[in-house]
């Protein structure tokens, strides 16, 4: 099953399970979703449960907050993460604040699903990975699954969660195929637990979302050099599972954090800081960070390729780190 179909199945099952769950977003009905995640759901559940919206992100994200405050469970689709920016006020100043600001008397059980990512020449305004912004904010939860199983299981968890969740998908992952839990099992995937997707002994690569796929390919390639790479899929950014990262790095003594977004003030910065404190004695080299080029994404294919945190860039960073430690030739 593809990542897209896994999401659709989770939405379908949750819509069927709980009448308070409803979907809201641009083009998610008749048009079946810009990326076809909601295909068939409008026909099946009708316009009340699968509500089409105008291009009014601030309006309908805010409406999601209000509906959630009195007991509904809105699952809001933002066509791509770039378009959440006009609704940032509703997410950061409102959704994230409600529970604490009102003394725990009311909450916002809302999910915002949105894909990030780049690589299709969509240029500066349509190629961003902004999840680090949200992971910075107390009151929000942020998850970013990298495979169909987790996409399915974590979306169910997100919908059942009592607080606002930013559920980050990825444009390139939608067609990825993989296993999903069998029908009728109602298996979910918890938040706050990273996943060691490849065991290794020489270097830990920590990633989330699409970058996990890249890390796995890099791990394959290093086998030729006799290097064993461990790959950690964070899955959940806030809550973050630093324990799994620490245990891995105590074993491998080397770590690299890779992300599609900009590394400066990013997810790698957070993880590197925690690893340096927790693994100071064990580390053989400083934790390395890799992100997308710190420039608005250019259009031309050659410029875009140079800007992306591609396998060659992450691989080169890993190689240099290993070379500094004398494990491979530079």
């Amino acid at each position: 099953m593809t990542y897209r179909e896994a999401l659709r199945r989770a939405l379908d099952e949750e819509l069927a399970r709980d009448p308070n769950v409803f979907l809201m977003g641009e083009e998610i009905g008749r048009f079946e979703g810009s990326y076809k995640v909601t295909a068939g759901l409008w026909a099946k559940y009708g316009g009340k449960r699968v509500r089409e919206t105008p291009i009014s992100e601030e309006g309908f994200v805010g409406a999601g907050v209000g509906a959630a405050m009195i007991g509904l469970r809105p699952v809001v689709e933002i066509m791509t993460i770039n378009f959440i920016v006009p609704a940032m006020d509703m997410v950061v100043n409102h959704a994230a604040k409600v529970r604490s600001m009102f003394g725990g008397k009311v909450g916002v059980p809302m999910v915002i699903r949105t894909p990030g990512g780049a690589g299709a020449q969509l240029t500066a305004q349509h190629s961003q990975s902004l999840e680090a912004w949200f992971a910075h904010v107390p009151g929000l939860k942020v998850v970013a699954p990298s495979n169909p199983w987790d996409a399915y299981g974590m979306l169910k968890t997100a919908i059942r969660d009592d607080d606002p969740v930013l559920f980050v998908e990825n444009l390139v992952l939608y067609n990825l195929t993989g296993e999903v839990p069998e029908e009728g099992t109602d298996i979910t995937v918890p938040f706050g637990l990273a996943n060691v997707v490849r065991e290794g002994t020489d270097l830990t690569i920590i990633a989330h979302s699409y970058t996990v796929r890249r890390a796995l390919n890099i791990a394959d390639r290093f086998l030729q050099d006799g290097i064993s790479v461990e790959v950690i899929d964070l899955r959940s950014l806030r809550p973050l599972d630093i324990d799994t990262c620490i245990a891995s790095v105590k074993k491998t003594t080397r770590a690299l954090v890779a992300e599609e977004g900009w590394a400066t003030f990013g997810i790698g910065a957070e993880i590197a800081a925690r690893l340096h404190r927790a693994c100071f004695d064990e580390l053989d080299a400083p934790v390395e960070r890799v992100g997308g080029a710190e420039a608005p994404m250019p259009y031309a294919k050659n410029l875009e390729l140079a800007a992306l945190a591609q396998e060659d860039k992450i691989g080169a960073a890993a190689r240099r780190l290993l070379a500094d430690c004398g494990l491979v030739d530079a």
Partner: protein
Amino acid sequence: MSKAEKAQEARTLAPEHALAVLRGMILIRRFEERAEEQYTRARIGGYCHLAIGEEASNVGAIDPLTDDDYVFTSYRDHGTALAVGSPPAAVMAELFGRATGVAGGYGGSMHMLDVERHFLGGWGIVGGHLPIAVGAALALDYRDESAAVLCQLGDGATNTGAFHEALNLAEIWNLPIVFQVINNQYGMGTNVEQASAEPEIYKRAAAYRIHGERVDGNDVEEVWFATDRLMRRARDERKPALIETMTYRWRGHSVADAGKVYRSPDEVEAWKERDPIVRYAAILMDRGVLDEEALAAMRKDVAQEISEAISEAASAPVPDPDGLYTHVYAPGWEEQFVHMDQAGPFGEREGTKHWRK
């Protein structure tokens, strides 16, 4: 009475002028058809939103502008670029991601611009450019310039918060700006009736005490005279306005959308009957300004021009990949970043050379 005033009175364009306007529409049509074909040949990447069917709305609104006026638009911007007079070869080169493109290959389909011709962009976030256009009008007013801003937007964009804030600001500050809502009936797959509480969009202007009017966006002279009148009023009296040009997008939302699920073939056909180019050519023939032969020659000439633009664009160099960071900030301020280099994330401190193959 000046020539322009006489034309306003007669509400028809002088023969030479009319032929140039017709050619401008044919140029957009041909350019877009070829762009669509080049996209399917993978010479163009990303999104590609075509203006086929909307030529009269573009040419009719942009042709009456003066050299001092400014233009803003959305990502459906190839027609706008051609209408302001950007060379087709440079627009095509931008689509091809070449260094000779209007934005040097950095912007692509959605981000055309032509600073010399006062076209300040194709913008990709729906509604985002409206307040920016208001800011340009503010600057014109601030400097007492006798010029105005034409801000094009889609019907869908009128449902963003930015639309309402922009209109309110334009009116309370008496700014020289005309908002042109190119109502092509759809925002992606969503019909105007479905998305807008007031589907007669021009009426929304009244909420801000702004003059609003609706014209046939497939009648190039109707668009021309209405825009000309409103732009003069904006320039001379500092009064904002909203003009809604009713038209239709023949193709899907972008080249990737077949444009079929959410509308009927009959609807599309009915609009094709009102082809702005065919209609205007017929009018000019009636007036004795044009005949079949001249029209065929004009089409041939345009086709040739676009073919040459494609060849020129295809043989232009791609941008230098070492220029990845060149335009992030204005030149001359690099000094400020000198102390940020140490121990930065991999790659940022050395540029891109050592991992690019």
